[in-house]
Structure formats: C-alpha cells, structure tokens
C-alpha cells in the first residue's frame, strides 16, 4: 500500500470508461429469471422449522415458563434464557451497549420480545409446540410515551459560538415543535436465517442480512467461540434499508441456538406479520427549534432540541442520535448553534437503523420550520434558504469547514430551474382559483448527508478489502459489503476495472461470506461506494503496482487483458501473493472530537434540494403528489442508472413516510402489522420523479464519488409536507401528513369551517 498516493484523486485510467457507464448489472439475470436464491428458497434437507415465542406485554416480570409439549414433545425442542445460561452461553446481543438479551430473562422490556424458541420438523408442528409453551407474566406499568420517558439511552450536544448573545441581539425569534412517527422498512422479503449445528467445529448461518460481520460478532459472543468457529454467509437479500443492519443478529442467534439444541439445520423465517411487529423501525422523534434572525433574514442563532424514542434497548440509538444532532442545523450557515440531543428508553421494540439514520427526522423539522421562519420574517421561502445556505469552505454546526458546501446552493438552483418553481407557483394560483375543491401547492427542502460512519468511526472500523488474482487475467473482489438491491457488486467491479484498465467483465465478485472475505465493515451509512469503494481502488492500485514491478513497466497505465494475464501468471509462478489487501486510510485527515462534537463529522457530504408539487382534494383531504424534482450533488455517479435507482427509491420511501406510513400502536404493540393496514405507496401513488444529478468530485472518493443511498430519504418528506401546507395555507407539524391530520389542520385554520 502506498498511503501517500491514496490521498490523490482516483482518475479514470481505462481507455474506455467503465466508471460512469451503465454496465450490465452483476446479479441482474438471476433476479429476472427467478433463479436468485433468497433465504426462504434454500433447499436444506432435514432442516427443522423454528418459531419464536414472544411477549404479549410491553413490560412484565416472567414468573415461569412451562413447556409441557405433550405428544408433540418428542419431536420438538424448546430454548429459553435459562437453557442458554445453563449451557454457558452469553445472553447478550453484542452491539453498542450490550444491554439486549437474545432471550428475555426474568423480565420483558417490550412487547414482542423473544421469550422462548421452539423448533420442530415442520412449521405446523413447531407452531403447535410453541402454543404449548406457557409463559406466566406479571404485567408491569410500561413507559410508552417517549415524550414522558425518563430513562436516557444517550445524550449528545453541540455548542458553536454564543447562542445566548445571538438571541439577545435578534431582530426576530421563531419557534416551532415538530413530530415524526415510526417508519417500517417494509422490505418485501421478511427477515430469515438458516443455521446449521456445529459441524467440524464450525457453525454456519446463511440468510438475509446487510452486515455479515455484525452477525459474526454477535454469534462469536453468544457462543463464546473463536472467530473461525463461526461462519456467516449472505443469501440474496430482498431489501434492507437499514432494517437488516442489526436485527439479523437476533434472528441468526436464535436460529443457531435452535440448531444447536436439535442437532439439525433450522430455518427461522419470519412471516410479514412477525417481521412488522417485532423488528426495528425508524425512531419517532420530537424536534423543537428556536431560531434567531437578523433584520435581513439571516440565521443568527439556532437552538435545537432533538428527542428520539429509542425503544427498550440501546441497540444503534446512540449513533442514530449523533447523526441526527450533527445534521439538525442543516446545510446552513449559522455562527451560533446549540443542539441538545437525547434518545430515551420506552417499553417498545427497539428502533434502529433506517435509511437516513436520524437525518430524515431532523430534516423534516428544520425544513418545515424554515417555511414558518420565512413567513414570520416576511421573506420568500426560497430567498430565505438562498441567503443562508453554506458556501464553499464555510462551517457546519460542528465547525467543520466543508470545501464543497456551495454545492447545496447549486442543487437549490438546479431544482428550482428544473421544477420551474416560480412559474409553477403562478400556475397553481390560477388552478386554485378555477377549482373550488382542489388545491395545488409547491414545497421545497434543502438537505445534506454525511457519507460513511460519523466522526472517527471509520478510523476505528479500519475496514479491509482484498483483490485476488484468478486464472486468465481475471481479478476477484473480496469484500463484506452486501448487495441488497443497490448494485454493490456492479459498482465494485467497475471501480476495480477502471483503476486497472481492465474490461468490466474481467473483475469478479463474490457473495459475502465471513469465511472468504475480509471485514470491509457494514453495508450502511452511505459508505459502500465512498469508503469501501475507495479502499478497493487503493487495493487495485497496489495490485497494479505489484504486477507492473513484476514485469518492469511503469505503474498507472491501463493493462490489456492479455498483458495483465501474463503479468499475473509470472507473478504467481514466481511465488508472488495471490491476494492484495488494503485497509482504510484517512486521506482527508478527518478529525473529530467525540466528546465536544467539534470537527470533521464526515469526510464528505452529499448535497441536495427537492421540490414537490401536490394536489389536495378538499372533499377527502387526500393528497396526490404530482411531481417530485430532486437535484443532488453526489460527487460522481459510478453507474448512473443504479444511482438514479437509489435516488428514485429513496424519494419514494420519503413520499410514503410523508403521506401514509404510520405505525398504530395499542398498549405498546403494533396494531397494524400487515401490509393491508401499514400503507406503502403503490405505483399509482408514486409521482413522476425528475432527477438532476450534479457531479462535483470529492477528492477522496473513488473517481470523486460520495455516498448517495440515504440522501434522497432525507428531504422528500419535508418537500411534500411543505407543498401541502402551501396548497391549503395551513400549518402541519407532524408526520405522516395523513388526510385525517390535514383535515384537522384545515378545520383548525379557520373556526368557521367547523359546522354544527
């Protein structure tokens, strides 16, 4: 490795550009012909079926667990926390705080918490046996309202400048409180794992997951066995969006415990209802803004309070909170910022990672708030944002000077231009005069998203990848980054092919398997391309250097496939290493003070603006999103079509969260845990989406690329809700903006609308 060179931008080197072109998708054909094998598709001879016994109570003491299985007993196994402890297992899901058990012991902290596991030869037998596991509970008073919860999982704070002085000298202060609800990932493939009992000293688990090494770490801890005794492999995965970041640790642990107990492979496949009620969701939150403005509408001071509902266990909440807090002041210039963040415990299933990871919550609050600020200040909402957006080199809330921050303004201009914002607003005014019971409106949101782990997370993670020389001048990428729909394997092959100057087809990829690939970290945080992709580019450069040295030619020139094959053969014949590995380096010199929340929170940010156009029906208060225009600077699109797919998909999830998606809870249990009653957008509800992709290269991303997976989720909801508020001239401060809430706000706006 040559760390000095890693700091140099990776320029295209191939004669024909692979990066930036829409090469054929790697796993595309399998998915289009039904050949791709998802976990439920695996044929596992002799496998038993696992079932999880869950708590009906949000909080309770477990008094006893009886397991008289009667006639079915001979063909079933049961595992409880007591069994686990007796067997010397560590009943802890290893993550951040290590406070969550695999199986509830003595008490349950949330509804649907796993209390016992059952396996039997068939699903029907396992269900019958599970019904005979009798758990006696003593229900306790649960804490269900996070706004009244007192137990704190984590706090964090940002202090920049002198906020008190800013407010004292303000021409105007505007306050607002905003609330957002849960969001269910609703990947169309529910969670599932198949685990094998220990064979030749190794336990194998295969299944639907985003982060093979998270599962690996969890199982290593659970069984107290060395790393090489646990093997985790990903099957084709039907969507994740963060929902398969940490929860698969539990599913895999449960399946492995059952396989251990019955001595056979066990399939533990959730159905939709179980997946919806039991697994993680986006954190609900309340965000309070106090904003000080000068006479010209410039932001003098921002005082923000972020409160998130973590659910019963800590899981990923601390990092969700820290990302929320860092993004809470948005892509705006403000010298005086105070942000207080808190994530609290409630007796509800733990909330976890979901695309955006805290940012959608704070972006909704801020962008709704800025419309309110504009109104209070008598300023146009576009002008207010334009005056306050960051310029190149200006500092974020953590004091990080961001070299390309001005891209936020470019994104705004591009979104306004493409949406013909001003002309469309005039057209809407005409439309609204002509139609008695329809109202059209426009909404705008500006937002940004840091790529990769927060703060020094990537340095600690120290991700590693490898490239392997194969026969015939081919190269194999070895990384733990998972394909969950985004096209990971395709873009990895593109990056490596481009650096080496080889054809795309010469680079192979593998399904992540902890026995085969190094730990390149989790597939989360918009890090796959900018972080793992860059390490891969570094590895490719190293491989190029090794082979160039071997044949005595200068490095950095594109290889023909024949020359490359020759050099590789020579290298291997001479006893050279087949594998080249590369590890994360910190080329941008990113530094972050994690106690004071000062410094470079992320190596790079992607910048965006979205405009939504809506029509609200005043008879039913239903909203139709007519169009979404989004402009985003993503550094460089490695594969433009895949990149567009990410942006379109993320915006659609945001539209769903804005309008429909709501978890209805009763006594701490999700009451609408079916796709019939948890409402996702269908093709009819989804608006036409127009994208403007800006490419201002990031010096330390592969070919200039930044992360894009989460960005589109951040700003879609505020753009849509701002448009509804604009259409009806009402205030909406809560997500989702259901017809029920819109109707209530519309009635509240003018008392005479309430008829007897």
């Amino acid at each position, binding site marked *: 490795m040559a760390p000095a060179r890693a700091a140099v931008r990776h320029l295209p080197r191939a004669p024909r550009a692979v990066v930036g072109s829409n090469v054929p998708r790697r796993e595309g054909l399998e998915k289009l012909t039904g050949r791709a094998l998802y976990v439920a598709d695996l044929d596992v001879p002799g496998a038993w079926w696992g079932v999880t016994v869950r708590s009906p109570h949000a909080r309770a003491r477990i008094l006893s667990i009886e397991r008289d299985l009667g006639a079915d007993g001979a063909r079933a196994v049961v595992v409880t926390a007591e069994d686990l402890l007796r067997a010397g297992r560590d009943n802890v899901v290893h993550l951040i705080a290590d406070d969550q058990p695999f199986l509830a012991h003595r008490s349950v902290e949330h509804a649907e918490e796993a209390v016992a596991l059952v396996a039997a030869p068939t*699903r*029907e037998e396992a*269900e019958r046996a599970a019904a005979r596991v009798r758990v006696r509970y003593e229900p306790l008073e649960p804490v269900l309202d996070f706004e009244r919860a007192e137990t704190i999982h984590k706090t964090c704070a940002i202090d920049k400048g002198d906020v008190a002085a800013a407010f004292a000298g303000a021409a105007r202060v505007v306050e607002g409180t905003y609330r957002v609800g849960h969001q269910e990932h609703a990947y169309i493939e529910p969670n599932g794992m198949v685990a094998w009992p220990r064979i030749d000293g190794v336990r194998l688990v295969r299944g639907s997951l985003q982060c093979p090494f998270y599962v690996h770490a969890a199982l290593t801890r659970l069984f107290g066995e060395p790393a090489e005794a646990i093997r985790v492999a990903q099957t084709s995965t039907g969507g994740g969006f963060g929902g398969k970041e940490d929860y698969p640790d539990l599913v895999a642990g449960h399946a492995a415990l059952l396989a251990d107990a019955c001595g056979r492979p066990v399939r533990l496949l959730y*159905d939709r*209802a179980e997946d919806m009620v039991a697994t993680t969701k986006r954190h609900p939150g309340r965000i309070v803004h106090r904003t000080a403005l000068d006479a010209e509408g410039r932001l003098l001071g921002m005082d923000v309070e972020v409160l998130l509902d973590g659910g019963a266990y800590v899981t990923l909440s601390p990092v969700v909170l820290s990302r929320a807090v860092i993004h809470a002041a948005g892509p705006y210039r403000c010298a005086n910022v105070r942000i207080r963040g808190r994530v609290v415990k409630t007796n509800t299933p733990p909330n976890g990672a979901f695309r955006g990871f805290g940012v959608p919550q704070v972006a909704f609050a801020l962008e709704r708030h800025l419309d309110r600020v504009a109104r209070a200040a008598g300023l146009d909402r576009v002008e207010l944002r334009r005056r306050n957006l960051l310029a190149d080199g200006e500092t974020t809330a953590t004091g990080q000077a961001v070299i390309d921050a001005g891209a936020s303004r470019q994104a705004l201009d591009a979104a306004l231009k493409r949406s013909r914002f001003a002309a469309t607003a005039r057209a809407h005014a005409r439309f609204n005069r002509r139609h*008695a*019971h329809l*109202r059209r409106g426009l909404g705008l949101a500006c937002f940004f998203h840091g790529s990769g782990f927060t703060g020094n997370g990537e340095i600690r993670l120290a991700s590693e990848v490898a490239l392997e020389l194969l026969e015939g001048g081919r190269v194999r990428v070895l990384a733990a980054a998972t394909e969950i729909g985004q096209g990971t394997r395709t873009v990895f092959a593109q990056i490596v092919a481009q650096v080496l100057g080889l054809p795309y087809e010469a680079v192979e990829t593998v399904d992540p398997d902890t026995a085969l690939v190094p730990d390149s970290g989790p597939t989360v945080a918009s890090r796959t391309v900018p972080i793992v992709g860059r390490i891969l580019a570094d590895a490719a450069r190293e491989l190029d250097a090794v082979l160039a040295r071997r044949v005595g030619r200068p490095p950095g020139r594109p290889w023909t496939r024949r020359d490359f094959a020759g050099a590789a053969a020579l290298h291997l014949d001479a006893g050279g290493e087949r594998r080249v590995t590369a590890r994360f380096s910190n080329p941008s010199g990113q530094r972050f003070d994690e106690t004071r929340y000062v410094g470079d929170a992320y190596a790079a940010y992607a910048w965006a603006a979205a405009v939504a156009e809506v029509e609200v029906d*005043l*008879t*039913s*208060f*239903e909203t139709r999103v007519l169009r979404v225009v989004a402009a985003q600077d993503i550094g460089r699109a490695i594969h433009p079509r895949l990149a567009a797919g990410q942006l379109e998909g993320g915006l659609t999830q945001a539209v769903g969260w804005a309008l*429909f998606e709501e978890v*209805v809870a009763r006594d701490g249990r999700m*009451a*609408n845990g079916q796709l*019939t*009653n948890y*409402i996702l*957008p*269908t*093709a*009819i*509800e989804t608006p036409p989406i127009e994208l403007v992709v800006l490419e201002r290269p990031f010096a330390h991303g592969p070919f200039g690329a930044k992360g894009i997976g989460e960005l589109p989720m951040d700003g879609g909801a505020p753009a849509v809700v701002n448009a509804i508020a604009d259409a009806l001239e009402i205030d909406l401060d809560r997500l989702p903006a259901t*017809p*029920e809430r819109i*109707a*209530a706000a519309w*009635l509240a706006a003018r008392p*005479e*609308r309430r*008829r007897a």
Partner: protein
Amino acid sequence: MRGDLAALEVLRPRRLAEALAALADSDRPCPIAGGTDLYVALNEGRAPARRFLDLSRLDELTGLETTPSGLRLGARTTYTELRASRLVRRRAPVLAEMAASVGAIAIQNRGTLGGSLGNASPASDPAPVLLALDAAVELAARDGRRVVRRRVPLDRFFIGYRETAARPDELIVAVLLPSSALEGWRYAYRKVGTRRAQAISKVVAAVGLELGARPRRIAAARIAYGSMAPTPVRARAAEAALAGRAPTSAAGRAAARALLAEDLHPIDDLRSSADYRALVAGRLLESLLGALGGFRPGLDD
C-alpha cells in the same frame, strides 16, 4: 403464513343441488369463491371452519344477464367481469366504476360479488353501490329434494357486524338489480380508501337520484355508505331530506346534516378516525349530489 392448511377439507360440487345439500349437512362447510378474504384469515391462522365448499365449479353461479325484471349477476361474478361487461357498462356503469376501485388487478380477477356480500364486511366495496341500486340477493337452499330460492332486498340483508340474513344452509346465488332502479336514475360513487389502489375503504359513498324534469326536483334518492357503521348502510334520513327538493347546494347541505345526525355511526379504527369519517362522509355526499344534480356543492374552502 400461520396455521395448518393440510388439515382443511374441501368439497368441490359441480351442481348447485349438491352444494346446497352439503350446506344442509350438520357438518356444514364454509363456502369459498375467489378466496381473497378467506385466505387473508387463513394466513393469520384464523380458519373459520375445517371444511370448505368450493364454488368454483358451479356454473349456475356465473353469468350476467338481462331478465324481465332487470339484471341478474351471478354470485361468482368477478370485479374484472363487471369492468369488462358491456351490459354492465351500459345499464349500470357505476358498478363497473366500483369494480375498478377494488384492490388491484389480481384481486379484481378473483374477488366476487357473492363473496363480498356473504363476507358482509362493513368496508365492502360493492355493498354501498348495490344498496344504492336497490339490489336484492337471491338465496338458494335445499328443501328435501327441491332447491328453493328466495330474494332478500340488500337493505335487509346486512343485519349486524359480519352477519347476514342468509340462513346457514343458504347460498348466495345471484345479485338482482331491478329495472326500476336502472331506468331514470343517475348514480355516483366514490371510495375514499387508505390509498388509491389496493386499499380498504375509510369511507365509501354511493348515491342514486331520480330527477324529475319539470319542475326540476329530486323525485327520490337512494344513498348508501360503507365503513361508517357496523354494516353497509342506507342513509334514509339523508334520502328523506332530499325527496321532493330542488337539487341545490342547500338541499345537499340539508342531506349532509341529516346524514351525520341520524344515518352514520363512524368509529376510530386502525385506518381512520370517527371525526374524519364524519367530515368526509358529509363532504362526499354534497360533492356526489352536486355531480348528479348539476349544482356546485357549497363546501367551505
């Protein structure tokens, strides 16, 4: 999927008489047509019976035809058939419009009129339109060796939450639309669901008006709602408020007032709130009456 489908038995008669004989049996099977409701329950592990009566081979339950008294729609008529039928589109286009609002294509291909009415969900999509069309159901049962049939007007068919006037040994064989409701009447329908497709309704309204020409006035009205009470309901107070009045926004307002005061009993549930349902039910009525009566509804805005 929960529960054990392997334990379920099914009878698959080819003739109505056989099917009715099975329903007369003490070990009475549960009828299944398109399965779009039944399999949702089975998926949740809630099997309503151990034995089922598959209606899919009973040709006597199919067909759309004109009869001397009106239209006869076989109980197994699917929503896709309603949408595609020239007869329906000509004589009762509102029924085709309703069919297009059900689920999505795959559900429309399987779901049947008889299934929905027999299931008697308060959120049934076809029930309000059929109530407005003054429809009746034809029930058949076995009496010894004979098949006996009777007609029950739909407004006396739904007697409680998921409860109908059909006896356990009776099968819905057809839906009958009287000519009197098809000539000289205009209909409008709107479903407000959880979303625009693949949705369960929050409020469904169907309105029929018979308009007198000179003077222009409402001779009679039939109004029905879904998802607003334990059963699909006729809104008789609203109907009475309209009878004999000129079609104006004031009449619409009066009907909406009567509707909310007497006819509907909305509740909060997973999908919506009583307040919203009441508000939208009234606004829908005014808007549908406006569309039919040619006036501009006076909805505040």
